[in-house]
């Protein structure tokens, strides 16, 4: 699980082009959207694509993403449970 969380942090930084943020700065339970990392709805769509491409998880409703992407911890748990890749 730790490996997955680390991987997710790296992917998020790369995918969303967060040039000024280091992996170490993202805590597992930090809020990713809103006040935390400040991601927005476009980032959510980017993460939905990442979920499909890298982990084989297809979300059909963007609203589902809101729950899953709350934090690295929650994302990692969801991915471990549902991944097909």
């Amino acid at each position, binding site marked *: 699980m730790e490996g997955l969380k680390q991987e997710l942090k790296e992917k998020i930084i790369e*995918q*969303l*082009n*967060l*040039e*000024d943020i280091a992996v170490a700065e993202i805590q597992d339970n930090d809020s990713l959207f809103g006040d935390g990392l*400040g991601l927005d709805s*476009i980032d959510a*769509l*980017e993460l939905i*694509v990442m979920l*499909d*491409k890298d982990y084989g998880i297809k979300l059909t409703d963007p609203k589902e993403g809101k729950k899953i992407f709350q934090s690295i911890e929650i994302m990692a748990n969801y991915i471990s449970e549902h991944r097909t890749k």
Partner: protein
Amino acid sequence: MSHCYINSLACVSAQHTSDNTQFLDEVVVYEKNILHAIPPNYKAYITPSASRRMAKGVKMGVVASSIALKEASIDSPDAIITGTGMGCLIDSEKFLSAIIDNNEEFLTPTSFIQSTHNTVGAQVALGLKCKAYNFTYVHAAVSFESCLVDAKLMLNENDASNVLVGGIDELGEYTTKLHELIHHVKNEEVNTSKLLDSKTRGSVFGEGAAFFLLSGERCTNTYAQLKDVAIVHDLSIGSLQDRVHNFLNENKLSVNDIDAVILGNNGDVDFDDYYKELQTTIFSDTQQICYKHLCGEFNTASSFGFWVASKILKNQQVPDVLKTNTKDVKMYKNILLYNQYRGKNHSFILVSIC
């Protein structure tokens, strides 16, 4: 009839132009057929969270607009009008290649969103939380001139006191390659100081962003006045002189009243004849100025020309690198700009001293 004062300006280009205290003091000569813009310090103007999605054109536009607004001491303009011939090429290329390479799978929306032509205008508005009128013109070589027509109209309608206008175009690597294939870009590298004497097809492509704050009221910083602008889609070389006379007559001027003419020669042997038609006849005795050997050719390059005109009228001085002949000019009062691209989309702009 309202006045239209050029109260501030800002320019990002392949030359050192983003510092308003300079006027081509240092000139860069390239041995290339593609001229990339010299990047300003983007971080000083754009937060990382905003800039992470921005391609070059958007960044250049946001910086240039910030500088222009600051210089004019305007927090939020009454209208934002931008022009771009090719739009956000980098993101267009990115999204399109992704579609083809991935067979329409796993596509992320960012580059699609950023590829829409009005992204620069939208980002500027977003940054300022400016809810005002916001148009983007995308008509090849008159994209910038269309902004000027609109801005002038708006000031006359008394619908605005301060209008931010800008021309932006960015180079897309693949698109440039395609334009090389069809000889719109020269296939050989060129020493830009000799571009205007070139005998080959195509030009040297560039990129940049130039923004201006146009206002019905002058201020201490005012550079010049935009007196008139005309867009002519189709014009033969044979009709060009008449058309110039018409344009000037409509402004109660004649060729003799023009102290300098700024022309869009771009070294394309097939189309520079338009400019030569004027250079060798009605303006043979006028100070002639060219600029595309400095900034390259792009659909909104005439915004660089407009920047040059504004600086000349304020500084009352023309850097030698711009001159293609030498005339003794006591005072620059009226400057005519003429531009076209590949024989279409001609434009005439009259800028005068305040």
